[in-house]
């Protein structure tokens, strides 16, 4: 016992090492939260099951870590030798010891394996009914380079960049991609699920808190993989129903977002600010309409850009990367390549006044 | 190539740890590795053989009788090369040249058959990229054909050595190495033939 202690005082390195490790280990707590995208703060049943399992492995791993690293450090301090020390006992091994340290780790692993298999089975199937007794809400998720599209077949609506779901109702995601492999990930609700061009993948979760939760693409998908984020907006069932109704109200519009019947009565026309009217004209004539629909109702074929229904009210633009302020929206429309190099949006030359008009128009789409 | 390894072997005359020549062990090792190469190609073919929305599928084009003939010829060649090796070991130059020549002819016949077959399929509308069945078929059999071609070339160099009288019994190993490779190429075909051609006969 005395020798290792002497070694400790004589050689400060190992102590420094231990100290450094403690610092690193507690650095897990020194971060400057909040952590809205954390895997450690589940807000739904699926993520909670995974989190429970993860915590089991963390505790066991920490225990094993302390024991094994402890044994190693102990051996280093205890058996420190000098060049002229006499020869030590030449031990070649021990079958008993080998069996012990084969069996014990196997048993420890069994402690991990059993809950693992249990959780695989629990999370592997989409529940037939949601905790609130309803059938799960089907949402079709479609990955694009580099944005996410969400469709609600139950309500016939489409949106992009923001997935709205009700709290307490299981969401049944059916996912695919129109181009390369992406991976859908909202850490606080579930693990990742890749999306493929030739097969549908499934994922599910039931949110138990309201709010807006960031998510990201987690499979490298090309140039702008780094900017393919989105938000999951969880609302109370009532608010969700209201949101659906608002989106469905878009059905009174053409796919272009224009009213089915042109407004002719001068009183109504007078209520529309000139700038907004100008923006609408630009939206139609500058080619925006070629790729973007302003109606959430299932858009026409050929709509290759994100659906812009309710764009005025979205939190973020450019795949979760820019706050949806007038200034940012202006920048995004005016110089998309500077905001997000390689983005597939093609914008014709426009004056600042024209862009402002477009922004004002889009802002009315709440 | 046969003599390649001979000179490379710094210790040919010295002892080896296993009762086998270095070069022979190396060829066996290489063959083991090649098994995985062909296993991957064959698996890919099996995955894609029914992917032919466009253009002909296996049942539309395969002509089993011709390929059976090619298969038989390749099978016989394995026997021929054993006889040739026997001749080489006995120092019987005539036997060596005769059987080795027959083996080479078999290889050439097989290659000819494959060229004819590819050409035929191409004219039936199955280009290399017409459909995935075609791509995986041509890739698999094409790589096998490349192996046959390399094997034939190798056997031809041994034949040339033998013609020039540079194949004494002590150098029979040079032929044995080529023969090992040749047997392997045959065995691969023995797997490809039923998997690719015979299985297409089923409904």
């Amino acid at each position, binding site marked *: 016992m005395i020798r290792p202690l002497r070694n400790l005082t004589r050689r400060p390195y190992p102590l420094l090492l231990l100290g450094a490790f403690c610092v690193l280990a507690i650095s897990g707590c020194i971060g400057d939260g909040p952590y809205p995208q954390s895997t450690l703060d589940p807000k739904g049943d699926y993520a909670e099951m995974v989190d429970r399992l993860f915590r089991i492995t963390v505790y066991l791993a920490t225990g094993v870590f302390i024991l094994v690293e402890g044994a190693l450090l102990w051996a280093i301090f205890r058996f420190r030798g000098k060049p002229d020390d006499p020869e030590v006992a030449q031990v070649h*091994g021990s079958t008993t010891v080998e069996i012990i340290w084969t069996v014990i780790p196997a048993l420890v692993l069994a402690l991990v394996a059993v809950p693992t298999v249990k959780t695989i089975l629990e999370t592997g199937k989409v529940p037939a009914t949601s905790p609130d007794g309803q059938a799960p809400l089907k949402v079709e998720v479609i990955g694009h380079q580099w944005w996410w599209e969400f469709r609600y077949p139950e309500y016939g609506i489409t949106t992009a960049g923001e997935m709205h779901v009700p709290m307490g109702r299981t969401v049944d995601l059916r996912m695919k991609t129109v181009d390369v492999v992406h991976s859908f990930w909202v850490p606080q609700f579930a693990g990742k699920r890749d999306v*493929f061009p030739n097969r549908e993948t499934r994922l599910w979760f039931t949110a138990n808190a309201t709010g807006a939760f960031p998510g990201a693409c987690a499979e490298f998908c090309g140039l702008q*993989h*780094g900017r393919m984020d989105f938000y999951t907006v969880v609302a109370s069932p009532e608010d969700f129903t209201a949101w659906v109704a608002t989106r469905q109200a878009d059905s009174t519009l053409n796919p272009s977002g224009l009213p089915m019947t042109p407004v002719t009565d001068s009183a109504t026309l007078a209520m529309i600010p000139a700038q907004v009217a100008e923006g609408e004209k630009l939206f139609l004539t500058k080619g925006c309409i070629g790729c973007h629909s302003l109606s959430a109702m299932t858009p026409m074929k050929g709509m290759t850009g994100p659906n812009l229904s309710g764009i005025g009210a979205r939190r973020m633009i450019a795949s979760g990367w820019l706050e949806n302020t007038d200034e940012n929206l202006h920048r995004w429309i005016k110089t998309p390549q500077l905001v997000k190099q390689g983005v597939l949006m093609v914008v014709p030359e426009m004056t600042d006044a024209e862009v402002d008009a477009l922004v004002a128009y889009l802002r009315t789409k709440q | 190539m046969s003599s390649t*390894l001979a000179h490379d072997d710094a210790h040919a005359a010295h002892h080896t740890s296993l009762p086998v020549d*270095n070069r022979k062990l190396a060829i066996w090792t290489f063959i083991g590795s090649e098994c995985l190469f062909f296993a991957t190609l064959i698996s890919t073919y099996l995955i894609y053989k029914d992917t032919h929305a466009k253009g002909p599928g296996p049942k539309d084009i395969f002509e089993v009788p011709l390929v059976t003939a090619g298969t038989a010829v390749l099978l016989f060649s394995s026997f021929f090369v054993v006889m040739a090796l026997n001749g080489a070991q006995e120092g019987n130059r005539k036997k060596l040249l005769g059987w080795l020549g027959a083996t080479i002819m078999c290889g050439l016949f097989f290659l000819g058959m494959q060229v004819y077959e590819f050409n035929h399929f191409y004219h039936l509308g199955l280009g290399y990229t017409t459909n995935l069945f075609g791509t995986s078929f041509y890739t698999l059999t094409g790589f096998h054909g490349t192996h046959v071609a390399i094997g034939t070339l190798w056997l031809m160099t041994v034949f040339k050595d033998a013609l020039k009288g540079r194949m004494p019994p002590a150098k029979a190993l040079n032929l044995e190495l080529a023969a090992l490779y040749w047997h392997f190429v045959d065995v691969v075909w023995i797997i490809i033939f039923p998997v690719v051609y015979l299985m297409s006969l089923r409904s």
Partner: protein
Amino acid sequence: MTTTTLDQAHPAKRSTLVEWLTTVDHKKIGILYGASAFIFFLLGGIEALIIRTQLMGPNGTLVSPEFYNQLFTMHGTTMIFLGVMPLSAMFFNFFIPLLIGARDVAFPRLNAMSLWVFLLGGLFMNASFLLNAAPNGGWFGYAPLSSRQYSPGLNMDFWVIGLQILGIASLAAGVNFFTTILNMRARGMTLMRMPMFVWSTLITQVLVLLSFPIITVALIMLMVDRTFGASFFSVGGGGDPLLWQHLFWLFGHPEVYILILPAFGIVSEILPVFSRKPLFGYSAMVFSMAFIAFLGFGVWSHHMFATGMGPLADTFFSLATMLIAVPTGVKIFNWIGTTWGGSLQLRTPMLFALGFIAMFIIGGLSGVMHSVAPADLQQTDTYFVVAHFHYVLFGGSIFALTAGAYYWWPKMFGTMLSESIGKVHFWLMLAGFNLTFFPMHFAGLLGMPRRIYAYPAGLGFEVYNMMATAGAFLLAISILVFMYNMWVSARRGEPAPADPWGGATLEWSIPSPPQEWNFTDEPIVTDRDDLWAQKRAAGVRTLPEPALSDGKGIHLPGPSWWPLIVAIGILIFFIGFMVPHTYAFPFGPITIAGFLLTTVGIFKWAYEPPDANATHH
């Protein structure tokens, strides 16, 4: 081209360029492997530093997204194929013949060809930077992103073709070392008397031989897709992108063990020597290594849990992966068991070997966490997994390779590395390494995906990224310290005796550096730690310094140009595929020229008279 006879005996005499280009000496080839791999390693390190600088704070703008994607693709590809693998190959080349008591490998010219193919392949792949077209689809090249449709430039052509070239080098070396180890052991060296590094090399070669053909076929198919417009992996023609993932990981997982098993072997050599006690549980070590390699072929899909394979496959691959922890644990316990009760001499090689164990334990434990499929769905493709595999590949492989460098440097170059600089190197590297990679665990768990060129502020990633970047520069400094140490050793290093550490294996019985023929008298082995047995029999701690011999009567293979020429032919052959073809003319003039050069080279090589240019003594 007659070689000077006593090259090694008169170190003042410089080897000429021609000698190095035509050498078939496994030791020179080993040094060439090491030197080129170290340069590639530095390149990969510089790429890492740019990546870390970009990610230092949120919304980094140091490099463009495109260049960032090239950087991380090349960082991964370089470190795996041009760094760790050839650094291991340096030790295979230099030390396998010495450890088994042979005068060279089984096929010296094939060995030279492997070297040149590797070097040309590595240069080829890095030349892409000059065209501003470095590979940018990740080291895993997932389809369909790697298809011509989504990656139209030359970038992924460089990757597809470069990897095929490198695969040829690995396969040729695999055949060579497998044969060498099985067939060229000194008399008396049974399999169970082989040093553990020889075992790890043998098993590594088996993995190479069985896994590289799979990636070769996959790369050929991808090349066919890209060059001829086929659709093996593109959905348009009915292809399946998932097939690429399966084939890639069928290779990719064994590849992980190809990177780590040599490290196991090196550490298993160093620990006994500096513990002055034999390796604990030799046979358990052999069997656990073989078992790890075997299981390595049955766990590939644990890289694909997020693809949604279904509960059955998830369960199978989860449990199979957990099973690997058992033999891995056995190895760690046996290493600790080796130090237990020993007389630990904490010289620099031993420090790195102990550092390896300490770091590998962490990487192993996070590996078990990844085997838990549902939890892995949260961790995969985040910085948690980046932390995990760096603990295995850097904390594991690089620490062990550095340990090996300090351990074997005196034998390779005949001078010692400085102990004091070495210790500074070790502590800096240990600190820098942990500061870089430990915080990444937290960044990943807090939701930071990998392969993103920037992250937004406000998600809580800032602190951990700042720590990691600081650590990366500390690591870079430690590498500079190492280079300084090598420079000092080359300039004024203390001359190394034959046996500076009290070694147990045959390489320490011959002069440092070894003479061209390694062993003047072919050794006869009677024991597992044969040199220790000899010393014990003689009742001494160190055997007398071996005398230099004039090597009379020893035949060595002569130098040859053909391996280099064949390697150049292979390079040209593959470059030909950079040009898109139609299947009517599948082979362009460049391809045909390369093919002809290769063929001519092989025939010339085959018919090169046995004693051409040979060294006679």
